[in-house]
């Protein structure tokens, strides 16, 4: 499904991450690693947010050669989401929906599943970290992506939402959507039956 070829990303700080070759089949994959190990950098590159050297392809579609087609297949939720603070979640949903055109009832369904109440009308600046995380998760599930990347999806959200998110991931997985997840939670490895468990240490995939 997902292939990385001669992937390399470096920063002016001296930190770099390299992956010679990586092939992930359809399913659910876990990437582990300490803070600052390079997990988020790798995920952002796969999501088409960061530029990098080398190439990444999903079902044979290269992000370098067909960036728009590639992005149509990948959705992403950040560990610490950042959005313009004067917009509401509803405005973010409307903007995203104009581009990816999700199913009519999907937004309401996701709002219920993720426990997003009336606050979606209020500006982002009024959200707690949990509300902000739920907003990013909702956007990541919008549309019909083939791959959903969730960076630290279970941190900052309440226990009830954690349970509902687990069910949501499992149901999407059963419908054929693949996932790449990261987490720091100790019991995270037992939450799903992962096809692959990878570990990143100091920018190197072990």
């Amino acid at each position, binding site marked *: 499904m997902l292939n990385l070829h001669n992937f390399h990303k470096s920063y002016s700080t001296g930190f770099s991450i390299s992956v010679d070759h990586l092939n992930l089949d359809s399913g659910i994959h876990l990437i582990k690693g300490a803070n600052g190990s390079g997990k988020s950098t790798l995920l952002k590159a796969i*999501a*088409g*947010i*960061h*530029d990098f050297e080398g190439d990444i392809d999903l079902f044979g579609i290269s*992000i370098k050669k067909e*960036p*728009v*087609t*590639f*992005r*149509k297949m*990948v*959705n*992403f939720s*950040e560990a610490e*989401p*950042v*959005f*313009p*603070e*004067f*917009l*509401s979640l*509803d*405005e973010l949903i*409307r*903007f*995203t929906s104009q*581009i*990816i055109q999700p199913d009519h009832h999907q937004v309401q369904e996701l709002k219920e599943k993720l426990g997003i109440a009336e606050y979606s*009308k*209020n*500006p982002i*600046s*009024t959200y707690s970290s949990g509300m902000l995380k739920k907003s*990013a998760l909702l956007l990541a599930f919008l549309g019909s992506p083939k791959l959903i990347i969730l960076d630290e999806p279970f941190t900052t959200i309440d226990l009830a939402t954690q349970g509902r998110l687990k069910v949501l991931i499992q149901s999407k997985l059963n419908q054929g959507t693949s996932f790449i997840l990261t987490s720091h939670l100790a019991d995270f490895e037992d939450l799903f039956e992962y096809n692959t468990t990878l570990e990143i240490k100091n920018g190197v995939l072990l």
Partner: protein
Amino acid sequence: MKEILIKSFVYPFYKAYLGFFILVTVVLGVFMEIKQHLMLAEKILQNDKWFLALLFTFLTYQVFQTFYIKRLIHDPRYRSFQKLSFLGFGDFIRFFTPVWLANQGLILLYTLLLCYVGIPLQAWWQVSTLLLFLTISFGISLYFNFLNFREFHPEIRLSKNRIFTNKPYLLWFIFHLKENRPLLLLLIKALSLFLLSGFFYSYYSGGYDYRWLAFGLLVASFAQYPIWLERWEFGEGKLYYFRNLPMNFGYKFGREFLVFLILMLPELTLILYQGSGMDHKRELGYLLVFWIGLNPGIFALCNWVQIHQKFSAVYLSFFLGFLAIIFGFNLAILSVLMISAAGFTFHSPYKI
């Protein structure tokens, strides 16, 4: 402690109003010579109305500065500084005086100039009033900030906008400027309109052809640089998540071009209004097309400069633009070139 306070309360102040300080530096440092500064200082000290206007300007600056510090104190990221409320006012003054002095640098420098000019002129009343004004404002400003540290305020948060309940993408950057850089937007637009009016005024006074106006547009467009720098930072920061969305070039560029047009509207209106008296309407058309191309071009330049960290490219571009105008290069072709440069910038899938 001094360094921490300077980093936390001085750097953010200058960074937040960078555009204003760049403008002041350009106007006072580039467009005015020492002789003109001395003449202006003499005029201020000899004319009561001018002197009062100066005091009012200083007061406005002080109010902005004091309220900016208040905003910082209420920022959740500055909660650790609440511990300064444990200090007595005397200790607070000792810690916060360097911050006040650094933030008032511009005013203090100008006061020194006025003292330098005023003492030989024996303008004792003006000089002593000025020094008394600064001493009182120092005390009031620091006491106001001291009270702000002592009182725990709720966080300042944005309330729901009742007019724009659904803000289209075209307005996002304008809202960003309104919420975070209102002064930058207002001052740059005011300067830009002031410059263009000046160029039109001198054009109608005679002795210039329309290349003079084209040069005026070039100058006014470079004055917009801080706005486009802000747009670049907005794209790299708060919008970067949206790079993940599958947007094709035509959609992205069309949308951004409309944002450019909205922000260029005040100057476009002025050009149309002032240019209505021009003899050759074709030249007015060229000027309008040139202005429409200039701002996307400046944004493309800003993007390139930020990525490659080659700040000298700004001066070089201005000089090349100046030469192209002087040698009568077709303004419409220049405009197309600049719009193409912006198009190339947005062509990157990593640019939003």
